């Protein structure tokens, strides 16, 4: 009896805590969206105006047109798409080799590749920058896209290798007896069976590319080449008027920038959670 009462009490406490935390987590996003619908006067008003009097969709039009937003969105999308394709192709090839093709030095090579996760970008950035400038590739998308095509996403190789190892060897043997080449076997047997891993990798590569500030900051100098993160910073800086940044428009842009991430998150939530959990278990 007593135990039951205390358990109801503890349930209520748990929900209260979870709810309070959830409100705190959502508040910045709610504030962002509310602000994006306000007029500038409402943003600056004192005492504060919590809810906009009218939902101003026109803020979005204004924010997205005063600023060559369509282009930046397209640039970000292009870079992300090329990175996803490159990662899936180059990492599948390497993962298949590590999983199914015995060769001398394979284990050592795999360990070497994995060890690169410890190498911070700060160590490699200066030589890479000077090489890319010597090649005349600064201010192009190449420095942002080339690494993906050269299997630098070691986590992806690791994850795919795990998947491939779990696929029975007989499948490959049967195809081999039929005279299929290794590439054929990879593309027609292994990859179709590894869709969950491929999706996880695609989703994480998208995030990494879409959210990347460091690469564009170093390599993209012309405004026409900007991706969203650097364009947003530029917008906040340039828009700084006498009254301060037009925060309602800045919040509209931020909302639009977050939207694809939120949509993909809801479509592939399990992939995200398994991917992160796997990175913990790996250790």
């Amino acid at each position, binding site marked *: 009896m007593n135990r039951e009462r205390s358990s109801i009490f503890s349930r209520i406490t748990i929900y209260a805590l979870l709810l309070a935390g959830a409100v705190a987590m959502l508040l910045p996003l709610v504030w962002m969206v509310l602000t994006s619908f306000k007029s500038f006067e409402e943003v600056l008003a004192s005492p504060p105006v919590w809810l906009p009097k009218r939902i101003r969709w026109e803020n979005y039009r204004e924010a997205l047109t005063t600023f060559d937003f369509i282009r930046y969105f397209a640039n970000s999308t292009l870079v992300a798409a090329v990175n996803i394709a490159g990662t899936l192709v180059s990492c599948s090839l390497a993962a298949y080799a590590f999983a199914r093709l015995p060769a001398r030095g*394979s284990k050592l090579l795999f360990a070497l590749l994995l060890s690169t996760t410890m190498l911070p970008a700060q160590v490699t950035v200066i030589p*890479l920058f000077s090489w890319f400038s010597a090649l005349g590739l600064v201010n192009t998308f190449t420095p942002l896209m080339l690494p993906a095509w050269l299997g630098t996403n070691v986590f992806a190789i690791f994850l795919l290798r795990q998947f491939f190892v779990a696929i029975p060897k007989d499948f490959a043997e049967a195809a081999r007896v039929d005279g299929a080449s290794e590439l054929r076997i990879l593309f027609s047997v292994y990859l179709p069976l590894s869709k969950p891993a491929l999706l996880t990798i695609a989703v994480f590569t998208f995030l990494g590319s879409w959210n990347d500030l460091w690469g564009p900051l170093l390599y993209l100098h012309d405004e026409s080449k900007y991706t969203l993160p650097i364009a947003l910073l530029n917008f906040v800086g340039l828009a700084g008027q006498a009254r301060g940044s037009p925060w309602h428009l800045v919040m509209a842009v931020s909302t639009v920038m977050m939207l694809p991430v939120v949509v993909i998150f809801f479509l592939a939530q399990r992939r995200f959670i398994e991917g992160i959990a796997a990175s913990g278990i790996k250790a």
Partner: protein
Amino acid sequence: MAQASRRSGESVWFWILVAPAVLGFLAFNLGPMIESLYLSFTKYDVISPPQYIGVRNYTYLIFNDPAFWPSVIVTAVFAAVSVPLGLISALAVALLLNRKVAGQGVFRTIYFLPSLLPATASGVVWVFIFHPTFGLLNRLLYFVGIEGPAWTQSVTWALPALIIMSLWGFGQPMVIFLAGLQDVPDSLYEAADLDGASRWQQFRNVTLPLITPVLFFNLVMGLIGALKVFDSAYVFGSTSGVGPGGPARATLFYALNLYQKAFSYFHMGLASAMAWLLFLAILALTAFNFWLGKRWVHSE
């Protein structure tokens, strides 16, 4: 015979298929790593060729550079406060979510999502939240009768603001904790229940020992992440009007200092030396993690 030729065929295929990754390893990791080590012993400004100067970059950083130690201290304070607070929050939420609550999925989504959002967009949102007059935080504080500080402009409050901002992103350690908690067998809790163990005793004697490896993993990853903080600090400084690192070096994180040395002042040799000190710190933390891992496995 056929066996042998197949073996060699397989190893030829092996090298063909890993070729892109090997090239990537050489061109984007090993090569730049070696060159960066060399550059750390040179004076180099990109325009003229690097000039060997021995360990002078390192001694300059340690004894003369006005920004080096301030940036180490900012980073260390951030790590010392934000990592433990983040881990405690992540573990607390994971423990609550692990209790088979209704709506577990919804809560998990809400807590996890912020950590995935683009740091630039969420950074800008936070800078606005911290706005001295129009920001949400000071407006809420005013509501309860507190006059909030000018967060973004204040030497005292800028770093705490960045710490608050970082706590919003504890989603990743939380998910890893949750996975670890789900591996703790129910039978152990049932046995503890039968023995009349209180909730705290169950946590202390069952949960905590079993999730120690996960805890250490999150701790070390958190510390390494803190050493590399760049995006949020850059966004904070460049959109709040104080300039990256400001006000007065209050948010001059190590990685931000390194970036400015390299790409604002073109002190590439000096920046390379900073990068190698960072790398050594990360290696030490990783080695520490392995050592802890071994110890805990043996003591089981």
